[in-house]
């Protein structure tokens, strides 16, 4: 396991969530997905968000990633207030600052592994050749140097998830959001995936949130936030940073 150093300069909080609620629907069909969530995530930290289905993990991570707006509360990510930010600014914010690893990979089936990994750079306006070259370097680091031209359908689940990780990291985001990154993988591939995220993605100037059900990967967490019924039930130090105190 790689030891991680934490950003200690000044305000090291990458994500600050205060009193966040989220309601869906109206009247009789009103559903409260989040009921006043408070959470801080530091730079250089890998925080795992765990809890039963329907407890609000996905809603919370969507709000932190800027793809969903809260009903109430304060959300400051990388020093930017997402609540008051316009939609177009949020789009640019996500483009420049957030990397995503999805449960079902969401790779474009018609693009090769290198092209898929290059997508964030292409969205940012890079030339295709330069973007693919940069993405190829990342894939090579993740052990897929010999699979650059393969389509997703020609890759195993573990390899596809590695392409997704490369895609999430290629533009050097300061926040990485991983949604159930191991749920579609077997134990071995799940372990490899988390090892890659832990070893490569976590950096002093980057915060990583992993939503997971998979207790086998808890050992990679710096902290584990347990959610229950739309609230953070407990935040405990993960085995990776045993002894550290929670900053909630």
């Amino acid at each position, binding site marked *: 396991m790689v030891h991680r150093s934490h950003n200690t300069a000044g305000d090291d909080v990458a994500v600050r969530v205060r009193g966040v609620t989220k309601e869906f629907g109206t009247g009789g069909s009103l559903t409260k997905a989040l009921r006043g969530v408070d959470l801080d995530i530091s730079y250089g930290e890998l925080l795992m968000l765990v809890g039963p289905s329907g407890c609000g993990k996905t809603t919370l991570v969507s709000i932190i990633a800027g793809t969903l707006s809260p009903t109430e509360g304060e959300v400051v990510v990388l020093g930017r207030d997402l609540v008051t930010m316009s939609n177009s600014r949020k789009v640019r914010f996500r483009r420049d600052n957030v990397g995503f690893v999805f449960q079902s990979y969401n790779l*474009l089936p018609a693009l090769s592994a290198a092209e898929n990994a290059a997508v964030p750079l292409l969205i940012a*306006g890079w030339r295709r050749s330069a973007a693919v070259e940069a993405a190829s370097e990342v894939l090579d680091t993740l052990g897929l140097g010999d699979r650059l031209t393969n389509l997703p359908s020609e890759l195993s689940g573990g390899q596809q998830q590695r392409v997704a990780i490369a895609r999430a990291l290629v533009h050097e985001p300061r926040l990485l959001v991983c*949604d159930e990154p191991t749920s579609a993988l077997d134990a071995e591939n799940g372990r490899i995936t988390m090892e890659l995220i832990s070893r490569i993605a976590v950096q002093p100037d980057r915060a990583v949130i992993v939503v997971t059900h998979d207790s086998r990967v808890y050992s990679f967490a710096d902290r584990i936030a347990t959610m229950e019924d739309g609230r953070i039930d407990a935040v405990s130090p993960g085995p990776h940073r045993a002894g550290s105190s929670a900053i909630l």
Partner: protein
Amino acid sequence: MGWHGGEPRPRAALERRPAGEIVMLWIAWKMLTGNRVKYMGIIFGVLFAALLIAQQSSIFCGLMFLTVSQIRDVEGPGIWVMDRNVEFIDDIKPLADTDLFRVKGVPGVDWAVPFYKGLARARMEQGDYHQMILLGLDDATLIGAPGGLFQGALADLRKPDAVIMDDAGYKQIWPGEPYQLGRVFEMNDRRAVLVGITKASRTFQTFPIIYTLYGRAVLYAPPERKVLSFVLANPQPGLDPQAVCREIGAVTGLQALTREQFMRKTITYFLRKTGIPVNFAITVFLGFLVGTAIAGQTFYLFTVENIRQFGALKAMGTSNWTILAMVLMQALQVGVIGYGLGVGLAALFGWSTRGLTKLAFFMPWQVLAITAVAVFLIVLLASLLSIRRVLVVDPAIVFRG
């Protein structure tokens, strides 16, 4: 420190560059062509619509072209003079013989000749009867004679009982038989001898066309008090034909039209007074509907199948404008390919059937333009639902397993 060994990629490197939109359109193209079956399905829908619209419109134009074939075939005179109530070429309302001389006397008229047009029933050698279009040319000048004579000579028309028949008519009466001049038949109990065979534009009625002298035509035709169908005239050199037409109308009280005006009037009559345009319009509209339905449904299904990919792109920072451009580019691409293949196949159909005299096919540029507009509307309608679906998709969809 950069995570993969080098210096951290400067944030400025992520500033938007002009290549961005084009590269995203490339991604859209890859997404579209990645699923071959769907891709072909969408193109087929547009192709089918374009083919049907272009082909049916061309046949319609071909039919309309046939209605003026006899005006087109009469080369030389720039002005047609007729009864005021004539509405189209086959609407014969005979003039008095003296009207010819009245037209000749109008200032600005260079020359004027009589022209007979009517129907005659011919009794053939074997005793069978055929309806024929009978055209009588000025005895002296033969103005109005066909230009495509390939059997016999025009001067032979001055021989006793001489007539010239059009090629399609000959094949209709004597199918499979070689061309043979000297054949004899009767019209109105008078002897007619075939002295020539000519190429002629097919007519709307598809009857054989018989050319003969004016004086002989009126004998072949059923007896009538007045027999002069049209006066063919020409303006003096340098004069505006339309001005001369107005002068003829003012002086004689007859209707005088330039060749182009008469063709337009004839086509307008068929457009307004017959059900032909409606029938073709229905077919074209059905083609439009079916094409829209096929292309729209397939395109929508394609979008729905890729909704998570679009959601992922939005989550990763693709703007709605870029997504809109991507979907429109996909629609435009299948539109252009479907249009090209559709009108290409329609043109191929017209070309391959050009020898079949019974099929009217004429594809002017207007047909291509109308088809292009229709295809544009089809892909626009087809993409509207998809665009709406893609634009409203919540980027958070990608977090739902």
